[in-house]
């Protein structure tokens, strides 16, 4: 980056901190939300139409509303639609778990990937697959939940010891360290056994390819429950943003909020990881974009995150299908390439501020 560009980005960052958001009235926010929903619908149609075999948009609608047994319709019903539904669910779950962790820890760099939650879920899945020989998602999804909650609690506990409490820096360091240990042990277990290694290298890239509806039925109830719980936490989290003392003075129950957020994060991150493998950076980027549009109110941030996160994930998935035709790039690889520069740009801002 040149010096001039660095200066500009710094000025922009400073303005961003002052500005309440692009949309300053609820009417404008609603308008933006409608735009976002329209974009999501367009991306959904594109995700069904674009692939190694391109299908015209009119056929997409026919396949859903007037199904006949042609090849195109079969592809759409058996492969593209489940993949897109999975993308919507996993996207919502990842984005929301990121928004929750960022709000709770008041840490702009928080993300289930950076804080080691995905690594924890993945570690327990590796345990299930490698040691207990599990093959179906119904059995190892419980391991993913267990891993997610154990890691979340552990990282939070290690990061918040001492009088300074859970500062962004300490939480991040704790997450990185614990994540490194867990992924180290995971790769140790996978390297012991070629079958496990082969299964885990597919899953470990992060991919939405899961033919049929089995994965969707296994994970969607948990994601739905997590989303509802997350929405209930929006108001208390607004109070928590003012600091713990002020929040309890305003009548928020801090302990209950924390427990609720941890449970919701666990449900969301665990289900998403079990369904699609460890996908990073969606939970980091989307809440930032949402905050940039609507300002600091968590209720609006959560709403926008739910709509925008699937847009990001599906777009990345479509990109992965386009760039290597007729092959595919796993969506986790694409999000890493989109998200890592965003992370670096955030870290380069002068002040890595608390929220």
């Amino acid at each position, binding site marked *: 980056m040149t010096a001039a560009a660095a200066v500009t980005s710094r000025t922009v960052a400073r303005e961003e901190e002052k500005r309440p958001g692009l949309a300053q009235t609820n009417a404008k926010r609603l308008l933006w939300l409608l735009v976002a929903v329209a974009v999501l619908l367009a991306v959904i149609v594109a995700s069904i139409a674009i692939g190694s075999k391109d299908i015209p948009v009119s056929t997409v609608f026919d396949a859903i509303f007037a199904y006949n047994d042609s090849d195109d319709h079969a592809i759409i019903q058996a492969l593209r639609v489940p993949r897109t539904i999975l993308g919507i669910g996993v996207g919502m779950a990842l984005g929301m778990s990121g928004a929750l962790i960022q709000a709770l820890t008041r840490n702009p760099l928080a993300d289930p990937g950076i804080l080691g939650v995905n690594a924890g879920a993945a570690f327990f899945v590796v345990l299930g697959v490698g040691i207990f020989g599990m093959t179906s998602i119904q059995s190892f999804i419980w391991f993913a939940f267990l891993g997610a909650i154990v890691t979340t609690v552990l990282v939070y506990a290690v990061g918040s010891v001492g009088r300074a409490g859970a500062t962004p820096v300490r939480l991040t360091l704790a997450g990185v360290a614990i994540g490194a*240990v867990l992924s180290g042990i995971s790769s140790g277990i996978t390297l012991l056994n070629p079958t496990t290694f082969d299964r885990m290298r597919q899953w470990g890239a992060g991919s939405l390819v899961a033919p049929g509806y089995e994965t969707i039925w296994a994970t969607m109830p948990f994601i739905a429950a997590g989303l509802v719980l997350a929405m209930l936490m929006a108001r208390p989290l607004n109070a928590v943003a003012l600091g713990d003392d002020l929040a309890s003075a305003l009548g928020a129950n801090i302990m209950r909020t924390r427990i609720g957020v941890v449970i919701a994060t666990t449900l969301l991150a665990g289900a998403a990881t079990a369904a699609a493998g460890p996908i990073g950076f969606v939970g980091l980027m989307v809440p930032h974009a949402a905050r940039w549009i609507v300002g600091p109110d968590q209720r609006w941030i959560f709403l926008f995150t739910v709509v925008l996160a699937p847009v990001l994930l599906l777009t990345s998935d479509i990109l992965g299908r386009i760039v290597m035709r007729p092959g595919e790039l796993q969506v986790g690889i694409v999000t890493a390439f989109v998200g890592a520069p965003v992370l670096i740009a955030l870290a380069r801002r002068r002040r890595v501020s608390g929220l």
Partner: protein
Amino acid sequence: MSVQDQPQGINFGRPIRAVRLFGEAVSHRVDLKTVTVCAILAVIAVVVALITISSGEYQVPLPDVVRALFGQAEGRIHMVVVEWRLPRTALALILGAALGIGGAIFQSLTRNPLGSPDIIGFDAGAYSGALVVIILLQGGYYAIAGGALVGGLITALMVYFLAYNRGVQGFRLIIVGIGVSAMLNSVNTWMLLRAKLEVAMAAAIWGAGSLNGLGLDRLGPATLVLAVLIPMALLMARPMAQLELGDDAARALGINAERSRLALLVIGVALTATVTATAGPIGFVALAAPQLARRLTGSPGVAMLPAAAMGALLLAAADYIAQRAFAPTQLPVGIVTVSLGGVYFVWLLLREARRQ
């Protein structure tokens, strides 16, 4: 009693002896505590190495191991000890020492206990470089080593410059390292997915950092290179300590700051690169060894010799665990060091927190 009567100068509570050889031609101040700690660490490292050599599918009693090492055993014991097990264990010792010194140099230059090659992306980059050679070009050992070097150097430079914003600050360095490593890891995953299962698995074991199956053919070149690099590094120990005072103070003490820094940087990179080329990226030893050694010696900054002894001990112990934990299956040693290193890191965080 005047100051002149005290040849040792001000007493900082650390017993120091001056060693002079050949009249005044060679003289050096020796910190007794540092020397004691180094000696103890080295002895423990050698003991751990001997235990590693003696244990395995075919148990060799310790006295027989020692006899075989002095060339007084024949037949089967000689073959098992000297030809099969010694090269690997000797590699663990010298590569550990190299990692310790390399880590000390990086941490001193960046003035940051986190400025180690694994954090600044060297390892992820080396893995990418090696994967390109293994999977896309089907290269041999020296080609892999070359690919790893190029990949590691480019990545480390990239991370350093991306993190540079009016100086390199520790936290930013880590975050940028995480970001760049995440991108490279996704490239690595993609390359592993494209390869055949056997190739991918061999590459993954290399990428974890492994001493398994390394024999005399690797010990020879590594020993030769490190026999040159380690003494060169130790000769730069004093300029390194003086550079920690800041460039101006170092210059006032007669150090050519720029030239010394460049020399140290080259030596540090070369040490880490030699290890990576020999055994793959072995994480966390370079991060932990200098800091653990500093705590034991109670010295004000990171120092090379204690870091080397500590690194040798850490890698020898990790190699023992890697061989014996899931015997007869052998783990890559890098997985053990990453796990232990992460635990150390968490302990460090807890300790720092309590002190605040």
